[in-house]
């Protein structure tokens, strides 16, 4: 069994200043443990932002974080993310299916050829029957394994599935309600849990939660609610290249960023998510590593296009985009952000060639506002909904105050309606027309462009209004609609990327939202942590990571 050690036992970094040592040496000698902790050779200890262990039965709860630490560690999907490279947007790759194709006639019938020789953690074999059983678990209310808890988590991913069946022992056919070229991005989120384990435990999902069985590279040994999950290497994982380098991985729930930082600096954990931005130099001066990379994240203001909203005027939308000193904001964030040029990052296959260059240009912003009849003396008045914290929200309060000043300087006077994260999500999910959103001209809800639907098609297509889509403010543009509709049914990935790039360029040229910065996904690692590759993704692969 894995045990935890302090940095002293690990031979961690020395104190940063000799004078501190001199002053505190006597106290250290008195308090230091007399015996060291025993510890297996390779344990990776992770400090998560989560306050609790996500649902372990298959469809992980708690959003991207839950999927990152439980969904992708214990389970596989038919299609997996390729998280092995830092220099490109994470693509899809074969998972439990070795290949898939769509019927060229109907464009709705998908055939998945399954990987042979794959075993669940309980030793049972993965096959077409397992896939059907798992889809029944999420879609067939009369099936004994139907599990509302997992259905809730899988909602966005199964919506377009009309039917499914096994063609033979290793081939599965799934039919979608409409032609949908984005379907593979939905399949990547459907985890395959073991029917055998569920049956062994009397069909009780709460028992399965304690002893889950997937096909993933890690096996859950123990989960202590609100404290930690202990995972063991799946030595027989079907992909030899992803057999974990560490024998054990301990995932600890440390939601407070300062507490995570102290756990890292004191050597209690080896790898933490989201260190506080102002601690970066402290971490580096302690000889530890801070790893960053772009990923599909944008910190924007999604805008209202209701008749009373000032942002119906493209001049005001463009002015707002030009009024923000993004470099100054990045400095405020300790360098842990990238100034935005649109929804996606420059260099991304979907960036395209927008003509509107988003930058800090207050003079042009003022000119645009003057043209629209406004000035600092006669400002545009707008109200934004913002949150105090939340997943992907970075440092929302200081960031919003910074931007508020920027906007005021050019003649846009913004007031905030501040609420907690869950309240903000509910306000976003309701769409701008919801009664409790009355008077709101924008919402500061961080966004992902992990897949074409959530990032571009679902936000820009006028028919994709909530709850079916993500077009919160009612943006409506004939050219964007046409591109979104075509991208949705373009099954050639290269051609689809081209359409998405055109769509993105159109969104930027229309200044659909106010795009501010992209988070750089900081992770802090102990000095002796090796092998970590920060993928350009919300998800990360910890199988190549080892300590020592």
């Amino acid at each position, binding site marked *: 069994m894995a045990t935890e050690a302090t940095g002293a036992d690990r031979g961690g970094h020395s104190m940063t200043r000799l004078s501190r040592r001199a002053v505190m040496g006597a106290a250290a000698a008195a*308090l230091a443990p007399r015996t060291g902790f025993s510890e297996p050779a390779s344990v990776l200890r992770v400090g998560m932002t989560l306050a609790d262990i996500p649902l372990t039965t298959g469809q992980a709860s708690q959003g991207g974080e839950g999927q990152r630490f439980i969904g992708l560690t214990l389970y596989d999907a038919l299609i997996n993310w390729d998280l092995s490279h830092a220099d490109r947007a994470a693509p899809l790759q074969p998972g439990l299916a070795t290949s898939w194709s769509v019927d060229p006639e109907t464009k709705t019938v998908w055939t998945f050829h399954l990987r042979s020789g794959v075993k669940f953690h309980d030793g049972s074999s993965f096959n077409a029957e397992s896939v059907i059983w798992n889809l029944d678990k999420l879609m067939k209310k009369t099936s004994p394994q139907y599990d509302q808890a997992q259905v809730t988590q899988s909602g966005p991913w199964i919506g377009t599935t009309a039917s499914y069946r096994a063609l033979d022992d290793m081939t599965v056919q799934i039919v979608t309600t409409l032609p949908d070229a984005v379907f593979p991005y939905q399949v990547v989120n459907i985890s395959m849990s073991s029917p055998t384990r569920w049956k062994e435990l009397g069909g009780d999902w709460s028992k399965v939660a304690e002893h889950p069985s997937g096909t993933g590279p890690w096996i859950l040994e123990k989960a202590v609610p609100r404290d930690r999950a202990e995972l063991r290497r799946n030595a027989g994982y079907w992909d030899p290249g992803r057999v974990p380098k560490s024998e054990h991985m301990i995932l600890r729930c440390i939601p407070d960023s300062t507490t995570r930082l102290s756990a890292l600096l004191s050597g209690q954990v080896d790898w933490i998510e989201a260190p506080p931005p102002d601690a970066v130099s402290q971490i580096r001066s302690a000889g530890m590593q801070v790893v960053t990379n772009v990923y599909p994240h944008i910190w924007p203001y999604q805008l209202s296009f209701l008749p009373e909203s000032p942002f119906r005027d493209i001049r005001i939308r463009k002015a707002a985009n030009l009024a923000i000193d993004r470099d100054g904001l990045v400095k405020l964030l300790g360098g842990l952000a990238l100034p935005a040029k649109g929804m996606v990052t420059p260099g991304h296959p979907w960036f395209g060639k927008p003509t509107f260059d988003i930058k800090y240009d207050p003079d042009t912003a003022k000119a645009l506002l003057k043209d629209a009849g406004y000035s600092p003396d006669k400002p545009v008045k707008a109200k934004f909904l913002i949150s105090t914290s939340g997943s992907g929200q970075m440092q929302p309060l200081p960031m919003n105050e910074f931007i508020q000043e920027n906007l005021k300087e050019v003649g846009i006077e913004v007031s905030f309606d501040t609420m907690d*994260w869950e309240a903000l999500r509910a306000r976003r999910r309701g769409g701008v027309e919801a009664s409790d959103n009355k008077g709101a001209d924008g919402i500061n809800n961080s966004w992902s462009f992990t897949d074409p639907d959530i990032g571009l098609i679902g936000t820009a297509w006028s028919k994709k209004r909530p709850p079916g889509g993500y077009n919160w403010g009612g943006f409506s543009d004939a050219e964007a609609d046409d591109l979104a509709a075509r991208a949705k049914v373009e099954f050639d990935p290269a051609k689809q990327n081209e359409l998405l790039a055109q769509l993105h360029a159109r969104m930027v040229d229309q200044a659909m939202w106010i795009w501010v910065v992209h988070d750089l996904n900081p992770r802090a690692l102990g000095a002796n942590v090796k092998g970590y590759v920060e993928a350009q993704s919300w998800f990360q692969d910890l199988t190549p990571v080892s300590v020592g």
Partner: protein
Amino acid sequence: MHLYILRRLLYTLPIIVGVTIVCFSFIHLAPGDPISAVLPENASPQVVAEIKAAYGFDKPLPIQYLKWLGHVMEGDFGTSIMTHRSVVSEVVPAVANTALLAVTAILLGFTAGISLGLIAGFSDRRMTDRSVTAFAVAGISIPHYWLGMVMVVVFAVLLRALPANGMGPAGTDIWLFTADDLRHLVLPAATLAMIPAGVLARSVRAMVIETRRQEFVQTLRGKGLGRLRVFLHIVKNAAPPILAIMGLQFAQLLGGSILVETVFAWPGTGFLLNAAIATRDLPLLQGTVIVLATFFVLTNLVVDILQTAIDPRVRRA
């Protein structure tokens, strides 16, 4: 005395029911949707309605409250929306973890506070008195989460002498009285102990000084009683109000400290409440609050009874 205890026990029932009503109302007055944290990103109205119905949130509030209260009377506190575990299975270990921390902090805090208060109260040296008063004011005034962070920086990060956070070494489900477990307890318990230590040091000092000035003390001295006997008389007379303060402090610590438990990643009731609030987990929030409120009320009841046993004047009043 028995009748008094029975009467006080009966008084606690409406207090607890009142707490449940206030708690239930406040939680539902807060903006936002109770199931928002578990809804899929693009949940259709049908899915929202189904999930609301599954948790009973589709009923009018009074009906929701009465149903919840009925289940609570049967010992069923419901199921957590976020984790799908029973609220009891969430709250019981959290209460145990907080109790461990609170009892340790109480032992530390009471011992330090009473000792320092007595020293200051009986000392005729201004320097001693001033020093203890300064400690007491610091203990009460310094935000304990800030103190916790400073202690972590000094003892965990700089000295590497104690663990920064967590309840114990990995690999164990329960807290054991091993050296490793005890080391994890030191910093959070010492942080939490500062408040009761400060409060008690100040209160004991004040009560002792006040009691020493009373005429009966002069009489005892005039009758030729030894210093120890006089000391004991003073302590006994000063004890009832101190006991009440100790009870309140104990109950407050048992309630858990959201900030300290968050700083030390200690999975107690404070940590649980923080998570429940952040995720709008109403069944968990209600279950935790009702258990904590009951603890608070019962602790006060025990203190009242003890006070009555020690000081008959209280009973007569």
